[in-house]
């Protein structure tokens, strides 16, 4: 079954090369490749429960010397998330860029970003993670510049690139310290080796700060709103849903598997505090945003804040199934936010392409002209806010109950305030969209239906799919809780 890992890791690279060599075939090839990738990741997730984790030693060398591709349930679910969002956004990008020249420019970079995502999720070597992080940062920045004619889009991409580089350098410094102290770069070996010493504390701080720049935690988040809101819609969908999430996945690996002896409760509480600030500040800025894409970018900031708030709670919970429940909820929130945010950005993209702008106050009457997109946006909004039918509601329920069980009740307050603020900015958008058409708006042709279906597909999945079929997340996770593998 380890050849499945190889397929998932190498297929995007091969597609990127194919799209580079034969641009005209890019459209069909991308659709077919994303479908194969989706099927492969579903197989991976279904395969995982029977064996705690799959691994494939590259080049046949033992992990100490060579690099091993590995996947455990946490990585498996995120691979599925990436494949799903990738499939929908590829379908959407196919129709979003009407100018074929822009599409031919997009596809190679698109698939290099995808290969970075999958290589990162499957990699089991610290330095290999540095190279994938770099590929991720570069391809994301390059994608932001595709089809960007305005100066501020390029400026945002540039700032994103430079901050990404600084983040990667910090990460590499951490890797250097780990290598100096323990002599190996392999994650599974380090899991048992790392003990608390000044050097490993320094490397933890370096690694974490590098990755926190990449997933835009509050003090280091200034690049995200500009970058995500000025990029074209399918790109910002992938950026918000996946790139930020994958950086968080690495942080999870570090905090909960590698550096568990080094991570003190003070460190975890600091992380939780930063997450809480991100939740409140992100939702407040989203509420005051005037443009839809800016609103969505700020809501990414606040949703990532929730994930960070989970950290001190999971850290405080004792071993056993309450911790398992919280860890599963963390994963469910990450997956459901990824899907819902991608749907939201695609919906906003269709709106922008249809109306020519994305100011919230001039959205009047779009509900009548684009019913499918508005329905997708409201469903995605429901999933983002965490209202009942959605998986995020289960995750929020788990967040509140585990914050009470772990005795840190203040996280519950932040969650409630965050939910209300999120509901506020969602209502603001829907209210504007349902309003009657202002006379000044020119009657524009209704958008091609194909452009609206991917958003609806993902939105429905985020609300009803994850709402009712979320229990497998806990089943697979409970089979091999990360801590027990020690």
């Amino acid at each position, binding site marked *: 079954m380890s050849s499945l890992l190889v397929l998932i890791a190498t297929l995007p690279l091969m597609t990127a090369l194919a799209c580079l060599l034969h641009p005209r075939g890019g459209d069909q090839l991308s659709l077919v490749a994303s479908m194969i990738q989706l099927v492969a990741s579903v197989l991976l997730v279904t395969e995982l429960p029977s064996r705690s984790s799959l691994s494939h030693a590259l080049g046949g060398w033992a992990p100490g010397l060579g690099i091993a591709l590995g996947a455990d349930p946490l990585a498996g679910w995120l691979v599925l998330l990436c494949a799903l969002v990738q499939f929908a956004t590829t379908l959407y990008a196919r129709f979003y860029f009407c100018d074929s020249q822009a599409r031919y420019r997009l596809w190679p970079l698109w698939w290099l970003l995808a290969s970075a995502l999958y290589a990162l999720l499957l990699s089991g070597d610290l330095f290999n993670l540095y190279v994938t992080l770099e590929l991720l940062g570069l391809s994301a920045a390059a994608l932001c510049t595709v089809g960007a004619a305005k100066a501020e889009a390029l400026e945002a991409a540039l700032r994103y690139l430079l901050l990404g580089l600084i983040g990667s350098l910090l990460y590499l410094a951490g890797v250097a310290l780990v290598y100096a102290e323990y002599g190996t770069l392999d994650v599974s070996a380090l899991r048992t080796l790392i003990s608390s010493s000044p050097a490993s504390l320094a490397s933890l701080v370096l690694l974490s700060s590098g990755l926190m720049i990449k997933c835009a935690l509050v003090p280091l988040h200034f690049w995200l709103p500009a970058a995500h809101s000025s990029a074209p819609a399918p790109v910002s969908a992938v950026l918000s849903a996946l790139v930020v999430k994958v950086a968080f996945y690495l942080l999870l690996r570090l905090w909960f598997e590698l550096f568990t002896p080094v991570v003190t409760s003070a460190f975890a509480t600091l992380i939780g505090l930063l997450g809480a600030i991100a939740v409140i500040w992100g939702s407040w800025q989203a509420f005051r945003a005037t443009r839809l894409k800016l609103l969505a970018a700020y809501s990414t900031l606040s949703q990532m804040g929730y994930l960070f708030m989970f950290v001190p709670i999971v850290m405080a919970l004792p071993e056993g199934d309450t911790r398992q429940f919280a860890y599963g909820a963390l994963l469910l929130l990450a997956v459901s936010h990824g899907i819902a945010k991608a749907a939201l950005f695609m919906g906003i993209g269709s709106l922008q392409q249809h109306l020519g702008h994305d100011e919230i106050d001039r959205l009047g009457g779009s509900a009548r002209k684009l019913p499918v997109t508005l329905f997708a946006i409201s469903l995605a909004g429901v999933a983002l806010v965490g209202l*009942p039918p959605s998986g995020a509601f289960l995750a929020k329920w788990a967040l509140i109950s585990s914050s009470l069980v772990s005795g840190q009740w203040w996280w519950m307050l932040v969650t409630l305030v965050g939910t209300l603020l999120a509901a506020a900015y969602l209502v603001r958008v829907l209210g504007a969209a349902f309003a009657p058409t202002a006379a000044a708006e020119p009657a524009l042709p209704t958008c091609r239906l194909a452009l609206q279906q991917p958003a609806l597909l993902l939105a429905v999945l985020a609300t009803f799919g994850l709402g009712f079929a979320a229990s497998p997340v806990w089943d697979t996770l409970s089979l091999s809780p990360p801590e027990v593998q020690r």
Partner: protein
Amino acid sequence: MSTNAWLPLLILWSSLVPGLIIFSLDESRQRLRTALNLIGAITKLLLVAGLIWGVYRELLFEFRWTLAPGLDFVLHADALSVLFVSLSTLLWLVTTIYAIGYLEHSPDRSRFFGFFSLCVTATVGLAMAGNLFTFVIFYEALTLATYPLVAHKGTPEAIRGARIYLGYTLAGGVLLLTGAVWLRTLAGPLDFAQGGILGDIPGLDPDALRWIFLLLVAGLGVKAALFPLHGWLPRAMVAPAPVSALLHAVAVVKAGAFGIVRVVYDVYGVEFSGELGVLMPLGALAAFTIIYGSVRALSQDHLKKRLAYSTVSQVSYIALGATILGPLATIGGLVHLVHQGVMKITLFFAAGNYAETLGVHRVSEMNGVGRRMPVTTAAFTVAALGMIGLPPVAGFFSKWYLGLGALEAGAGAWVIPVLLASSALNAAYFLPILYRAWFLPAGPWPLENHTHHRGETRPSLQWPPMVTAALAVLVGTFAAAPFSPLEWVELIATREYR
């Protein structure tokens, strides 16, 4: 999954599936949309009839689906839920007919009827919820389904009213969620059970339980329009008549009251909550709301606002009934759930007819409306008299049982005066309308459309109020009949007090 498990699910789907199909229909498919609506309503009615018959014979109807470890989505049909399900299903059929007539030429009807059926699905789901977790899911889903209905017209004040409505209900939802989660962490899975579950769980800290009760009742009180949280109800009257009829007389408001009944009887257990001493403040608040609602209704000139404030006061009867220990008060409170629904919906239908045919929105414009539209005004009169509490109509019985229950529980000293005062106030704000409608000469109607109708207005607008008025009288006179609401409530009461 025994066959019984599918019945609650089928009841849910019978309005969910037509709703989703209607969403995808475009505007012009008028006939198909009406057909779908009616088929959905009728199948649901038949299914509910089967359910009533099954529950009467003590059959177990339960659908369980685990969403997450320790969190199950449970649909469980017991006597109490069947009462609310049958009420909302019956009135949904009548209101759908009324809505089809009312929205004859207005735009966005597919969107309206889609959300309309989603809203009823949420109400029915809420009624059949088997544990507090499922109840919270449907409680919030109800908020989401009703927001677009209130904002349907798209006018600035409609959107503002809807935003205020959403603000209140979401805040309430969050409070309910917190209480439910806190209780869940303390007391484990909260499946509703006759006579309450918290009583026999040892080692629960009473203070925490009091805080949780406060959170739960505050969350539910928003929808049940208890005193400080009722602000949204009058403003939500901006919605079209069928919406304010079904939602603010039956679905939304009753969901809150039903929630309070569930919490008091099936989570805490009425004896246990009595020991905790939480019932007294809730009872006082309910009584105050009854008086406050009626007083505010006096000064409202806008007809629908006056009806809204009367709803605020009437719903608190149910809360009052729940807080008085003793089966008789319970019967009074619960049966009022049905009676008030039937009577209030007639009033809203009538108000909708006046607005639609004559353009009459204010009480001051209703001079001589009885001569112009005798049938609708007759229905209005019957319902109004029932609200005041005159015998043949249903309203009398609930007040009667409430009074008896209060006497039996020894709390008669303050409950009886409240009942009498509220009846007097009801009379004070309903009788002038009746006097103005029947005895004053008719003035020029603001919107006299001399269309071709033989009767007062379109048949689909005229028949619903007559049916519901007749229903109110029938329920009143045949209260002792085997399947009447009163009999059914007595069945519930006997099971609650084990």
